[in-house]
């Protein structure tokens, strides 16, 4: 096989190894799901094909060994490997087809929408509680009493009870969570809890209590202010 073909194979192998073994071991990281690894490998393969076919020479250097190998033309000792590939490939396609259609007891893929759209009645709401140091402090106090067991005293989703939940409680200090949302959205989520989620949010997968049965609205608005302040985030606004 030509060197032009060896390099892409090594490159794909290296990318796979990085995604599978290096990225998960970076502090604060986690293993990547297969869907994402597949996506990145597809991109790598596309890049290889694009670059290899930019000129006639590079295309021939890339494609001719593949063609020679597949047709068995002057490949000498690789003939056995060729038969192996030609046999193995349809078997792999068959296995893939079987495993994707056969009945399985594996649970379906997780495709829960984390931030589903709020009901219309919540979209126009704004926080009626004046934002003062006192009200923020009160909000933090309510937060400490009702929310911090799960969402954590540091607003990072790592409260003492957090480890008991899957999915885990939201990390408010992450700039991709409450910083992306308006206050009215949080009001809806706190008030209605997990059971108030629409189907795409999978209400059966959230242990968030329905706080409207225990807390008055004013307290909820104060908690929201305390949350943003404590997590060093700001709500989405249009002014």
């Amino acid at each position: 096989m030509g060197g032009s073909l060896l390099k892409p194979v090594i490159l794909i192998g290296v990318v796979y190894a990085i995604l599978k073994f290096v990225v998960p071991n970076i502090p604060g990281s986690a293993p990547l799901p297969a869907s994402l690894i597949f996506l990145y490998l597809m991109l790598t393969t596309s890049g290889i094909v694009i670059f290899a076919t930019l000129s006639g020479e590079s295309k021939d250097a890339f494609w001719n060994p593949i063609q020679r190998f597949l047709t068995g033309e002057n490949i000498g000792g690789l003939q056995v490997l060729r038969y192996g590939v030609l046999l193995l490939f349809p078997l792999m396609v068959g296995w893939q087809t079987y495993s994707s259609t056969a009945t399985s007891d594996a649970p379906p893929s997780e495709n829960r929408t984390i931030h589903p759209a709020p009901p219309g009645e919540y979209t126009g709401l704004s926080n009626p509680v004046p934002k003062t140091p006192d009200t923020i402090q009160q909000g933090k106090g309510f937060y400490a009493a009702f929310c911090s067991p799960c969402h954590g005293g540091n607003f990072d989703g790592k409260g003492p009870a957090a480890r008991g939940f899957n999915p885990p409680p939201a990390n408010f200090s992450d700039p991709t969570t409450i910083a992306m949302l308006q206050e009215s959205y949080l009001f809806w989520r706190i008030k209605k809890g997990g059971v108030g989620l629409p189907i795409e949010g999978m209400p059966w997968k959230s242990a968030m209590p329905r706080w409207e049965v225990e807390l008055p609205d004013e307290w909820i608005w104060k908690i929201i202010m305390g949350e943003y302040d404590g997590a060093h985030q700001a709500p989405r606004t249009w002014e």
Partner: protein
Amino acid sequence: MQQQGGWFQRLLQAGRGHGGMFSALLWAVGLLSLPALAFGADVAPAAATEYRDIPYIGSRNLVWVVAQLHLLLAGFVLGVPIFAWLCEVVAWKTGEKRYDKLAKEFTKLLTSAYATTALFGGILLFLLISFYPKLMNYLTDIFFPSFIVYCLLFLVETATLYLYWYGWDAMQDGHKKTFHIFLGFMLNFFAFFIMIVPNSWATFQASPVVLAEGSDIARAWAATWNPTWWPVNIHRLIANVVLGGYICGAYAGIRYLSARNAEERDHYDWMGYVGNFIGVFGLLPLPFAGYWLMREIYQYNQQMGITLMGGFLSWLFILQAMLIGVLFLGSNYYFWLGITYRIPGSELKYRKSMLSMLIILLLCLGVWMTPHSLVASLEEARKMGGTHHPLLGVFGVMSAKMTVSNLMILVTFMSFIMYWRAGKEETAGWAKAAKALMSALLVLAGIAVVVLGVWGYFVPAIIRINYFSTSQVMIVLFVMLTITPLTALLLKSAKTTTEMVWGKMPPRAGYALVLNAIMVILLMTLMGYARSSSRVHWHVYGVLRDSSQYAFSPALGYAAGIMALNTFLFCMIVAFIFWVATMSDKAKASHS
């Protein structure tokens, strides 16, 4: 749904079996009982029909397919005149006749394409009136003044198109050519209004402004000038240019692949280059217009914004990233193939640059395609602590997406500049300084875009949206508006070291052009579904509720099937239009 008239049909069917005797009897009874109607006048009238349906296909699917085809055809007939007129102006200014020939070749398509578009528009209107009478009554009540304006616009557009096309050969010299150019401008001017008037109807459904009082014109005007009207107008205008350019490219690609002689290969290779250039020219500002549209939607209604960007429709934007990514890769690939094959000897010089640009494009695309919530098995989600990856989850939000889309635009722009400069040697004394300035600008712009993107995570959303994202756009526009004239000035005095060779591109270049066109059409069908579905169970958002049996959003897989069908049907229609329009030319060529 209201079911009416079933008893009458059954009665008629029963009558058919008795040689018409029964029908005659029925008529007689009907006539004799007419006076009885007077007694029944105070009986409450039957409720008006709100919806009708057809079996098997379903009214919504039929309207979906016809509306999408009408929209794609409309994009084509509005995009092609822009494309043709630009080519005609270039021919007029530079004296290069081949541009005039190209413009004429495409204008020829317009007459048949225009009729087909109007035909689909007519079918759509009849279907809407038949299937959605309640909605159409409501819209007519609000928009009837603009319906009349629309009809008038059609009249003047049609007259201008006839003059523009049939007067092409007669208006070739002197002032007549100037007048013909003016006609082309007017054609596009009227076409623009033909586009924005129906846009107001569609955008009203998404972001309605309803006046309870006032004259008909005041109500229609308020409804027209709704929050998403102008963002959609601008977005569609640019998208039409992109569609026109890439379809021209695809046509050229197919003709190039089937060319029988060197002359044809030269011509269609060049046409492919022009089509790709115009497509890319439109593609570069398109993400900015899209961003503005989404911002307006989000600001108009949080629920609609989240449905699109964070809710169940957010997966469409991952698909969109894939399609746009392929489009960017395809366009750059075509530029790079052009450098390699049309400018012999340039490949070695630019190969490393191409590799760098390819790597940047792929990395950017990787970020753009990374969803915020990942598809993961239960086990994988457990390991990640949810469907957000703790490290790569940051790629899933707008700050990252805006950054990489700006970088991809910069890279594509540089591909074009590289293509432009290939085979030429700058002779100006200030060339070195200019090139250093351009390189510095580009590097600084890239750094600034990335810094703003990262910084965007640490500021309130409104600061990011209003200042950082717009600054990123401004930086990229500044680079384009600085480097383009500087390069033009530099190349004015440049020496051509290698002449451009046409007709030498490999077949894969033709396939790349076809792929680009299909990507654009798929993108338009995808975004058509997104725009329409964002209204969820409302005909007019928050005002007129959809109470039909189809008041639910179809599953994404099902929707993807209809999108693919629409893309296929549109390609077939366009192929038919091209075939019909070029039939006589082929006959003439075979006779001569």
